[in-house]
């Protein structure tokens, strides 16, 4: 098994700095469910942005629907603002193949036409299968395709990483 250790809290501090540089005056943060949504919620507070962050789910646009079927979770998208003309900054915990990012961009456009879409992630683990690159990643790691990397949050709201064999 991997001996990789990722300090999610330290990486979050880096993400905060990186996201601050990407902000435009009207930027709306949208976290990708579920890990990205936690990050967006905390970033919204730490950056003292007005209004609420958005949450977006890939479930209705996934390209593996035929083999994985419908997910039962009530993880539906909530965008409490008009996306038309807004610069959108997508936040995710882990960027891997890029397929989730592709699906949520489609989901986003079902709500309107943003002026731009940018992506910032906590960890970029490589292995891209689509031409998608983040504008910022707090860390790049290399993991076997069989390993699953996921953000976890404890009751106090502190982040950590889970690495498991798929």
């Amino acid at each position: 098994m991997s001996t990789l250790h990722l300090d999610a809290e330290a990486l979050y501090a880096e993400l905060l700095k990186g996201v601050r540089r990407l902000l435009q005056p009207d930027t709306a943060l949208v976290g990708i469910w579920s890990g990205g949504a936690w990050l967006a919620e905390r970033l919204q507070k730490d950056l003292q942005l007005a209004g609420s962050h958005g949450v977006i789910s890939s479930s209705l646009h996934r390209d593996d629907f035929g083999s994985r079927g419908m997910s039962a979770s009530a993880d539906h998208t909530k965008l409490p603002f008009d996306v038309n003309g807004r610069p959108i900054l997508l936040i995710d915990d882990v960027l891997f193949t890029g397929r989730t990012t592709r699906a949520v961009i489609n989901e986003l456009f079902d709500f309107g036409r943003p002026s731009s879409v940018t992506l910032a992630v906590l960890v970029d683990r490589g292995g891209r299968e689509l031409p998608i690159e983040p504008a910022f990643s707090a860390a790049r790691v290399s993991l076997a395709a069989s390993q699953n990397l996921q953000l976890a949050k404890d009751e106090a709201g502190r982040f950590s990483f889970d690495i498991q064999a798929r």
Partner: protein
Amino acid sequence: MLSKRNPQLNKHGELVHLLSIEGLPRPLIHQILDTAGTFLSVNDREVKKVPLLRGKSVFNLFFENSTRTRTTFEIAAKRLSADVINLDIARSSTAKGETLLDTVANLSAMHADMFVVRHSESGAPYLIAQHCAPHVHVVNAGDGRHAHPTQGLLDMYTIRHFKKDFTKLTVAIVGDIVHSRVARSDIHALNILGVPEIRAVGPKTLVPGDLREMGVRVCHDMAEGIRDADVIIMLRLQNERMSGAMLPSAGEFFKHFGLTPEKLALAKPDAIVMHPGPINRGVEIASDVADGKQSVILPQVTFGIAVRMAVMSILAGNEA
């Protein structure tokens, strides 16, 4: 022994056809209702469409007339990006003498992925499910007096939406229960979801005593039937299914079992009034009640689309 597997489920216990609510596990019903909740918000988007059934063909096979159910299935399938083909079979092949299975075989050869079936014979959707290709999913949109599972599920969605917890409710189903596949589907669903008191209310000719075997309390008195109820489901008086004199007259029925504001006052103050539609004003329900603030008849219609989207998307994602 009933050791045979439920024909609606695959070996992993996933739903591959929706034929009846009877025998569905409780978590599966909640999964459908949760998924419907996700789809409800799709109606508020600028683009009211998701691509889950893109490239799939859904055939609406209505061997019996229906406008509302067929339309809501059509809307649901289109919002999932499916291609929808409506066949008014009652007026086509069947009239020329083709058998049900020959019709289905022909449609399968046209590469159907899903059949939505309404038939006046109980069990017709089961027969189709047994004989169609393994990749084809069947949804029962009402068969005879037997079942109308998507109506049952949308009723459960409505109750959950307004009342949250099933395990403390008293639900009264009022009217023509003997002819009603909706009542049968509702009773199965309410039992599975743990509703402690289900009442079947109506005259002896329309509410037979053997309904007690389904775990319901039979009431032939309206006041007794709806007193302190949390949910009242009114059924349509189905003149087209009645043979002979089961009722003196529609007026007589309304006098005893029609839901008026006075009778509704016997139920809990926050009771909701449901009806699967189409409503007969002044026959089973007074206009004041149908249009009143306790009526949730129109939300039922909206929820019905989301529930049908949920059923079709769950089926399409599961393999036989």
